């Protein structure tokens, strides 16, 4: 019992610490300078050449945006700090002050500029059509109807998505993916006929997908910009100035050449940034090293030795989330169950609603709500705290139902026997009902613990990188999907199997029909 109390205390200390750790963060240019870091948000799952895990150390990100962020930060007199978030949720992270700016291949668009403050462009991209080598498909032929419809893959919500939908919408089926390389692989494996990709991606991944060819010139030129919070004009002005300096000194060109991203389109940057680049635009770069491209696809056991360690670390996060949230879920669940069974009349419908609300809505939505809504009313729990609380609250609904069933399974005669001996209702509950109910609920509760282990993967939506997210990131950057999948599955099993076995043992030990001490 004392150990339990100590655990609960330690837990609350942890919670309050993470709350405090969180409270001072993200403001305007002054805050960035005072803090000494520019926190920029991006999704490493999006992959190269923007932001992707380094081959030699998957815990660290690299990419041209990583280097650009460092350069901009240097111009501002601070350090750059990368913040991982799901690509489509980056504006939300901006709004909740988790990050200072978004920089992740976000194109300039009227919709976005309406809600965020856009910087000047740092890169001019185009959309490139990719088809299988030898296929005689181009944009014009795609626009002609064919039966069955051809399929074109795009990144969901990207400019490519908009263009394809608007221009080809009727003639082809637009298939939306979460990852760029997924589209390219699907073209290779003939599930798609074509994909429309941003030019940097095409440049970077060309060695990975030798079976693909670019057809036609890049279309629908657009601009990548940084986004700050609406109204942060000083910060954005400082960033614009930094970009102009970098361009003027030729550093942008050097950076883009390093990644093989420099092309004629970038000449427009002179006008866009309002400064002339000092490097001669057409100077030959004879002895320049070959550009950084996607590493050749790795296969087999090499994956295990190279990425086993990182995956194991991320499994640690999965374990941490589970062991912090589940005890709380059980505790809350027990309170809810007791409240519903023995509580005052007015409390029962409230608790019933609590349970139904949590069981009837997706966990992901609940996490979003806590993470993105609470900051709007001034509460800013950290991602970790949000994840732990969200999981605990969600699971408390299920645990309370299990406990209710367990408590009801104890015959009324047991309570009466305890009462007739002079025990109070609380003592009867504690010494007679709960121990018997616990026995009944252990198997389903352990079952739920295993389920919770797997549900922690949902936490990636609120910026936490646990095992599944790490798997996605790595599989996106290496394309060693099958190997990583197997490895990840083994890790999940390694966590859940011992639990199931322990549960079966415990169940046997608690079974009065077998216990004979």
């Amino acid at each position, binding site marked *: 019992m004392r150990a339990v109390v100590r655990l609960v205390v330690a837990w609350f200390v942890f919670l309050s610490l993470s709350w405090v750790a969180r409270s001072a963060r993200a403001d305007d240019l002054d805050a960035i300078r005072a803090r000494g870091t520019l926190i920029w948000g991006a999704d490493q799952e999006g992959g190269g050449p923007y932001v992707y895990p380094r081959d030699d150390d998957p815990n660290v990100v690299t990419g041209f945006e990583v280097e650009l962020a460092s350069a901009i930060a240097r111009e501002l007199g601070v350090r750059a700090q990368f913040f991982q978030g799901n690509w489509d949720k980056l504006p939300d992270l901006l709004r909740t002050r988790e990050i200072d700016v978004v920089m992740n291949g976000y194109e300039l668009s009227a919709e976005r500029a309406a809600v965020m403050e856009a910087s000047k462009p740092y890169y001019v991209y185009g959309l490139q059509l990719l088809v299988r080598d030898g296929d005689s498909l181009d944009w014009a032929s795609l626009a002609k109807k064919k039966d069955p419809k051809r399929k074109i893959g795009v990144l969901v919500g990207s400019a490519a998505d908009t263009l394809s939908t608007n221009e080809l919408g009727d003639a082809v089926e637009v298939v939306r993916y979460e990852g760029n390389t997924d589209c390219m692989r699907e073209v290779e494996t003939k599930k798609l006929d074509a994909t429309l990709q941003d030019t940097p991606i095409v440049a970077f991944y060309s060695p990975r997908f030798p079976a693909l060819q670019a057809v036609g010139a890049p279309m629908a030129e657009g601009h990548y910009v940084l986004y700050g919070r609406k109204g942060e004009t000083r910060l954005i002005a400082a960033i614009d100035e930094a970009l102009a300096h970098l361009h003027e000194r030729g550093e942008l060109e050097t950076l883009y050449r390093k990644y093989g991203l420099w092309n004629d389109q970038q000449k427009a940057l002179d006008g866009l940034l309002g400064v002339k680049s000092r490097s001669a635009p057409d100077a030959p770069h004879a002895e320049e090293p070959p550009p950084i491209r996607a590493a050749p696809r790795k296969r087999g056991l090499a994956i295990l030795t190279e990425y086993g360690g990182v995956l194991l670390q991320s499994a640690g996060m999965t374990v941490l989330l589970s062991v912090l949230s589940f005890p709380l879920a059980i505790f809350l669940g027990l309170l809810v169950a007791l409240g519903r069974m023995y509580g005052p009349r007015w409390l029962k419908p409230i608790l019933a609603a609590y349970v139904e609300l949590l069981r009837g809505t997706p966990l992901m939505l609940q996490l979003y709500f806590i993470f993105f809504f609470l900051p709007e009313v001034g509460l800013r729990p950290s991602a970790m705290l949000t994840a732990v609380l969200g999981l605990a609250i969600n699971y408390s609904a299920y645990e309370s139902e299990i406990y209710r069933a367990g408590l009801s399974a104890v015959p009324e005669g047991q309570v009466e026997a*305890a009462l007739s*001996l*002079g*025990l*109070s*209702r609380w*003592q009867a509950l504690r010494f*007679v009902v709960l121990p*018997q109910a616990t026995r009944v609920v252990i198997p389903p509760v352990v079952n739920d613990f295993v389920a919770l282990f797997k549900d922690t993967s949902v936490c990636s939506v609120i910026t936490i990188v646990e095992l599944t997210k790490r798997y996605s990131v790595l599989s996106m950057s290496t394309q060693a999907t099958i190997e990583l999948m197997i490895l990840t599955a083994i890790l999940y099993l390694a966590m859940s199997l011992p639990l199931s076995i322990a549960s079966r043992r415990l169940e046997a030990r608690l079974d009065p029909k077998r216990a*004979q001490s």
Partner: protein
Amino acid sequence: MIAVRSLRKSRAGKDALRGIDLEVAPGSVAAVIGSSGSGKTTLLRCINGLESFDDGVIDAFGTTLRPGRAAGHDELARLRRSVGMVFQGFHLFPHMHVLDNLTLAPRAVLGERRDEAETRGRALLERMGLSGREKSMPHTLSGGQQQRVAIARAMMMRPKALLLDEPTSALDPRHALDVLAVLLELARDGQTMIVATHALSFARKAAARVHVLADGEQIECGSPDEVFDNPRHEATRTILDAARG
């Protein structure tokens, strides 16, 4: 002393008890007989405060129960410390071994130390012929043994009176005899008891008074000799015949 006056209780629109009067002097035994459904269990549960009633008064060693809502917690606790109950279905705690079943209440309610409670528990088990079964789990015991553990468990609280609801009806005859032997010994030692039972020979030997219930009504009441040998009521005769088999 336990006194029940004009006790009435209706249940689901039906009268389960219609005016029961009963008085048990300290150190004596009252037997309650009646066919199934006559109200014996309901009567005992009312006296133990497990059920509320509609009319009448129950007085048990200074605690008074009145009709309507259940009595206060303190009152009930006081009542139950003086009046123990042994249920027809034993209701042993299945997750505890025999000795823990016995010592739970003394420790939790009276604050007795574990070793003290266990010493008393062992002694009581020996008296019940259950030496050696201290650490057995309830489900490993025969019905007769379980019933004796249930009696010992109630006795651990040193109740001034013990209510027993058909203590032998769930047992085969041999085990029933063991239990009745224990109860007879308790009666000789001056333990006040109210026993709902069909065991007429036990009632004749142990009881000072016999109460006959039929359909919630007390149709007859007197010494065992009066009731058993000279029943005034036709229904009593039927009940006795059924009990004699």
